[in-house]
């Protein structure tokens, strides 16, 4: 594995690699490489993935193989050209083949087995796919109407699959055994047609109402005998009947759950409420499925409308025109809807009542009278939605909102109709208990299921309007509701049974089955009729009569029908709910439904393709009898189970069962279940909450972390030459962002700035900053110099981000110190936020940058810098001075606050910059010193370093990594043009050094940090820059000297040794790590300033300053360091 990652990392590093580092690196690469490689060029990826070094360690080998397999498994999701994918795949396979044999035998078998399974799965999948029907047809529809309409057909196909399974279940376990082994027709009472009906058994009228021969057939519940065992094999038909009934529910339930889970997973990502209106309208507008010129034209027009709409909405967001009119219109519309709802409920009740009276008065009912109720109900359900749609136009809602309203209203309508129907029927049953044809229980069941279904459908349809995927979910939900309701219904029906059956020799289950089947048939007829009459004829009329009409039929009144996805899906769900409910009473219902769905599929697809429209609906249901059916003689249907247990199982089993089913056991169990449900729900709720939190976190981290990692990788890959070109650009882009961050001038900014210093860090910090200050122009921010509120908000983000950021740094920097460096980074971030000083430093940073680049509006920048940041800069200056270094060993008392006050801010700033500058430069000897001062400084530094060396114990530790990073940053900012290459080189060096140094530095610097936390507060209080300056200065003094030393050391090993000794001398190792980073961050700022402006005079002044007030500085430094530490922690 290590070998695999190495090539990618690049040649720059040949240090000992900790395994962990490698793996981290590799992982990061693996994750992001796929989407990165276009930038980096393919070479790295191929090398990384394919090259494997022989390793003797079996564990490593195994991991290697696993890794290769992972590649193989995921190769298809890599955005590479096929050629490369094939190549990588081949190599990975070869490696697996080559090394797999060396593994232990069991592993070999395991893998071989897995391979075999995979192959089998693939073959199976290939076979199964060929049986998916209507692929071409759906594709054709898709190409004409896009994904929305196609989703209806996909849903239909899915339902079709479910019904096939249901058919197989009922057919093979209930219908076929009964046909083959059951008592033949005419042998028992339940299987013979009563004599009084025999004459009319073959009448079309009877057949049409599913009476006569049909009634006494396997179609219905009543036909199945209650003999415990049938046939020679002793098939327990009643048990099978019951179990199949349950299995049908269970299967549908599970299928629905799975679908729902899948859909919810899909919709999870889009659950956020972020507003990307325009983005989505642009980037997600085109439906790539469209492959028809007419449809493409429509789509194009729709997109234009959509975008215009968005523009208008955007423009009119503020002004609300004619609000009063709109509100009154909407009130009116709602009143109309309510009126129509109430009217429909009344009509249904009235019709039921009337049919009841008619039945009592007349012995023979006409066809119309028989079907009056169902026809009226279906008419209402057909017409009302259209009326609602008309009303909705009054309201002038956004189309999406209006669709939601429409669905909600339709749902309420369905529910209202069903409930009124049920109530009316219950009334009817009660009033004529002698011969109720429809059992109330069934009705309630159906109604509840339908209502639940419809509700779900409405939701689904809303989503579907825009997306097809949602439909399935809603259906699933509905089904589930149906299931539960059905089960309860069946249970409910049992008690009713006694009332209902009375003298009726017809069993009510058969009656229910008949009703359901009848409903299904009528529904189908309605569907077909509506498709043919309404859509087809309308289409014909519109197309052929438009020429002889005075208005344009195609675009004005009749138009072509429109495919109403939501309502059609609702209808499908309704239909399926009927099947589920009726399947128990009519085992052949699923089979019928299969046929129906097939027909629907063809008819609908044809209608959609030819005339572009359809829509409608229906419904019903009922309960068990004592003289017919497999459960006859049993009080409750599920007694079949206890019966079976009692008679067919050993005695002990029934005993156990009786105990288990006793209330003593059942009640606690039920309680327990409730508790469990509650508990699970609570957990789900909390999980949802955390999920939300995590998602928010991910959102921020994903984007930013990715970028960071990418940039790191890019930095690595960039060869010095190539990097030279890129760096300037990066710097430029970075600078504005930095400026923006500075302007925000919140404590957070400091953290970001520190990040900026190292190339990797930079990008991260910059991005975070920009995000916080999103939308605001960089320049504006700079000019204003005011702190922006976003910055404050950003804080949490920064913290979150810090971790990711730190990692990248580690990668770059060093292996050994990665852990520490991470912590350090965090520390660094935090302190800035706490300290006001940090803010000040930022301005300096900017200033320097600007000064360096005349192109930028220098005046603006300068003003900003001076105004708020002069103080901090001065502090830095003091710290940076060389003298302190010498003294540093002894004490940190060099910071002159007063000096700052005395001197003009500008001067102070300059000084600081100079100091810093020289340090970085010293580090990189390659760069010729730009200003004399800088050179001088270098020399001084070197000298001091030498001195230190002497004084030091003589340990030759490596230079601090942090300073190096900072230096890099400086170079970028100030010296981009001049020495990009140099800086790059420096980076590399730095990185190498950093690895080792990070840890050490942290330790060394710790001493400084120890001081009290009060400093931060003090700093903040300090209104003037000067005051703050002193506080900061102490730190910097320490740091700067050390850094300068480090710099020198990098260039010259000797210097390094000195620095190290320095560090070692200051023994605060524990705290050090955090403090170091902070220091480094501050140092970085300083450095930057330096590089930009190098003023000889300023240097001198600084030195003086430092000399004057060493003691005060000392104290201040202490406090500062403490603050930093605290903040970091």
């Amino acid at each position, binding site marked *: 594995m290590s070998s695999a990652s190495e090539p990618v990392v690049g040649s720059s590093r040949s240090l000992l690699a900790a395994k962990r580092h490698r793996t981290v690196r590799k992982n990061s690469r693996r994750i992001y490489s796929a*989407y990165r490689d276009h930038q980096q060029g393919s070479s790295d990826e191929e090398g990384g993935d394919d090259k494997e070094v022989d390793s003797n360690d079996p564990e490593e080998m195994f991991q290697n193989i696993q890794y290769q397999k992972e590649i193989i498994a995921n190769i*298809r999701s890599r955005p590479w*050209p096929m050629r490369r994918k094939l190549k990588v795949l081949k190599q990975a396979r070869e490696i697996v083949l080559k090394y797999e044999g060396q593994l232990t035998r069991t592993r070999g078998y395991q893998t071989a087995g897995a391979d075999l399974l995979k192959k089998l799965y693939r073959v199976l999948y290939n076979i199964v796919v060929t049986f998916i029907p209507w692929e071409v047809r759906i594709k054709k529809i898709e190409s004409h109407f896009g994904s929305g309409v196609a989703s209806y057909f996909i849903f239909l196909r899915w339902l079709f699959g479910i019904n096939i399974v249901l058919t197989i279940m009922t057919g093979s376990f209930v219908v076929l055994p009964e046909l083959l082994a059951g008592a033949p027709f005419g042998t028992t009472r339940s299987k013979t047609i009563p004599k009084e009906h025999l004459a009319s058994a073959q009448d079309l009228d009877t057949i049409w109402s599913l009476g006569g021969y049909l009634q006494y057939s396997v179609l219905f519940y009543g036909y199945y005998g209650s003999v415990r065992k049938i046939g020679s094999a002793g098939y327990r038909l009643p048990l099978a009947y019951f179990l199949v009934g349950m299995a049908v529910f269970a299967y549908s339930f599970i299928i629905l759950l799975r679908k729902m889970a899948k859909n919810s997973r899909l919709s999870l990502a889009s659950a956020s409420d972020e507003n990307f209106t325009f983005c989505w309208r642009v980037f997600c507008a085109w439906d790539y499925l469209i*492959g028809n010129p007419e449809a493409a034209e429509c789509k194009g027009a729709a997109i234009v409308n959509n975008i215009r709409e968005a523009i208008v909405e955007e423009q009119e967001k503020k002004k609300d025109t004619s609000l009063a009119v709109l509100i009154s219109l909407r009130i009116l519309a709602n009143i109309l809807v309510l009126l129509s709802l109430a009217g429909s409920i009344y009509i249904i009740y009235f019709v039921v009542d009337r049919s009841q009276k008619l039945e009592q008065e007349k012995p023979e009912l006409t066809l119309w009278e028989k079907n009056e109720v169902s026809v009226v109900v279906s008419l209402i359900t057909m017409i009302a939605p259209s009326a609602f749609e008309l009303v909705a136009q009054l309201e002038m809602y956004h189309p999406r909102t209006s669709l939601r309203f429409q669905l909600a209203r339709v749902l309420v309508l369905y529910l209202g109709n069903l409930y009124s129907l049920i109530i009316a029927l219950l009334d009817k049953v009660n009033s004529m208990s002698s011969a109720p044809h429809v059992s109330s229980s069934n009705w309630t069941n159906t109604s509840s299921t339908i209502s639940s279904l419809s509700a779900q459908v409405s939701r689904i349809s809303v989503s579907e309007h825009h997306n097809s995927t949602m439909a399935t979910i809603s259906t699933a939900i509905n089904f589930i509701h149906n299931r539960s309701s059905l089960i309860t219904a069946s249970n409910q029906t049992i008690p009713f049974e006694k009332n209902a059956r009375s003298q009726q020799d017809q069993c009510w289950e058969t009656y229910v089955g008949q009703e359901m089947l009848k409903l299904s048939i009528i529904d189908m007829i309605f569907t077909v009729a509506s498709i043919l009459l309404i859509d087809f004829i309308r289409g014909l009329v519109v197309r052929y009569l438009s020429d002889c009409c005075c208005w344009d039929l195609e675009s004005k009144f009749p138009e072509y029908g429109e495919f109403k996805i939501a309502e059609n899906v609702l209808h499908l769900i309704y239909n399926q709910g009927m099947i589920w409910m009726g399947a128990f009473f009519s085992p052949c219902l699923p089979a019928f439904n299969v046929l129906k769905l097939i027909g629907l599929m063809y008819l609908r697809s044809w209608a959609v393709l030819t005339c572009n429209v359809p829509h409608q609906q229906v419904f019903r249901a009922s309960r068990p009898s004592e003289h017919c059916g497999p459960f006859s003689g049993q009080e409750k249907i599920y007694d079949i189970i206890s019966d079976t247990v009692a008679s067919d199982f050993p005695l002990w089993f029934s005993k156990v069962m009786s105990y288990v089913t006793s209330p003593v056991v059942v009640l606690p169990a039920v309680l327990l279940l409730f508790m469990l449900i509650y508990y699970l729900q609570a957990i789900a709720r909390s999980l949802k909450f955390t999920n939300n939190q995590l998602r928010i976190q991910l959102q921020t981290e994903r984007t930013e972390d990715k970028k960071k990692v990418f940039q790191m990788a890019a930095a690595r890959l960039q060869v010095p030459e190539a990097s030279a070109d890129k760096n300037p650009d990066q710097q430029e882009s970075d600078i504005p962002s930095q400026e923006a961050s500075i302007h925000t001038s919140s404590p957070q900014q400091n953290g970001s700035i520190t990040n900026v210093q190292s190339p990797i860090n930079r990008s991260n910090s910059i991005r975070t900053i920009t995000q916080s200050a*999103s939308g605001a122009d960089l320049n504006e921010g700079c000019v204003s110099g005011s702190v922006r509120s976003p910055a404050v908000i950003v804080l949490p983000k920064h913290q979150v981000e810090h971790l990711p950021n730190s990692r990248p740094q580690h990668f770059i920097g060093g292996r050994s110190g990665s852990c520490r460096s991470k912590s350090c980074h965090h520390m660094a971030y935090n302190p800035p936020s706490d300290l006001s000083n940090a803010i000040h430093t930022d301005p300096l940073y900017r200033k320097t940058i600007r000064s360096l680049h005349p192109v930028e509006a220098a005046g603006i920048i300068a003003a900003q810098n001076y105004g708020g940041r002069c103080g901090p800069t001065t502090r830095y200056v003091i710290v940076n001075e060389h003298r302190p270094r010498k003294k540093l060993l002894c004490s940190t008392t060099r910071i002159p606050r007063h000096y700052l006050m005395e001197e003009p801010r500008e001067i102070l700033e300059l000084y600081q910059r100079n100091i810093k500058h020289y340090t970085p430069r010293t580090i990189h000897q390659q760069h010729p010193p730009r200003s004399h001062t800088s050179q001088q400084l270098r020399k001084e530094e070197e000298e001091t370093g030498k001195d230190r060396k002497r004084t030091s114990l003589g340990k030759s530790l490596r230079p601090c990594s942090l300073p190096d990073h900072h230096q890099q940053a400086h170079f970028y900012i100030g010296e981009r043009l001049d020495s990009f290459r140099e800086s790059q080189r420096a980076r590399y060096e730095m990185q190498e050094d950093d690895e080792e140094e990070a840890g050490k530095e942290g330790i060394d610097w710790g001493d400084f940090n120890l001081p009290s936390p009060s400093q931060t507060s003090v700093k903040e209080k300090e209104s003037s820059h000067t005051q703050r300056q002193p506080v900061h200065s102490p730190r910097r003094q320490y740091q700067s000297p050390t850094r300068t030393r480090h710099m020198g050391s990098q260039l010259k090993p000797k210097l390094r040794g000195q620095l190290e000794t320095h560090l070692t001398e200051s023994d605060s190792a524990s705290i050090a790590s955090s403090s170091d980073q902070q220091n480094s961050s501050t140092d970085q700022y300083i450095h930057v300033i330096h590089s930009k402006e190098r003023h000889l005079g300023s240097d001198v002044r600084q030195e003086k300053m430092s000399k004057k007030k060493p003691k005060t500085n000392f104290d201040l430094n202490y406090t500062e360091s403490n603050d930093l530490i605290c903040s970091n922690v």
Partner: protein
Amino acid sequence: MGNKQTIFTAQQLDAYQDCTYFTRKEILRLFYRYRDLAPQLVPLDYTNHPDVKLPYELIGSMPELKDNPFRQRIAEVFSEDGEGNMTLDNFLDMFSVLSEMAPRDLKAYYAFKIYDFNNDDFICKSDLEKTLNKLTRNELTEDEVKMVCEKVIDEADLDNDGRLSLEDFQHMINRAPDFLSTFHIRI
């Protein structure tokens, strides 16, 4: 089977199945679709990896693509020469990414490339303008286009550099409810 076997070896088919989201049958179907574009150019034997490229004019005339305003970009992005001339491998790549099974990230990556007209790895204003003009067939006025571009960048540009990077784009597209269903070609 015998006939099919001569087109690809079993290993080839296996590799293609590993590298795409297609089944055997679909791969063969795609091959035939590809071949039907230019029967005289495409051999029936692909076991020795013939170097055949179909020009963009042929690819763009497929019914699946011919009405797509971005067809040229799609072909360019997926072709190795960047000009829309596609080998069978490119062809398979294209439809694999656009298939139903392809994950969101992969689709987003290629969608980004498709909308990045100037191939600079950023969607800048000029890219957006082109996208919009193609999408709306130049029906929007310049002002409207300008405003929409500004709004888009305003909404999705996280780092305020005035253009959309891949990360910005993914961030945005990952929240789009319609993206998966619309960035999809059923073949």
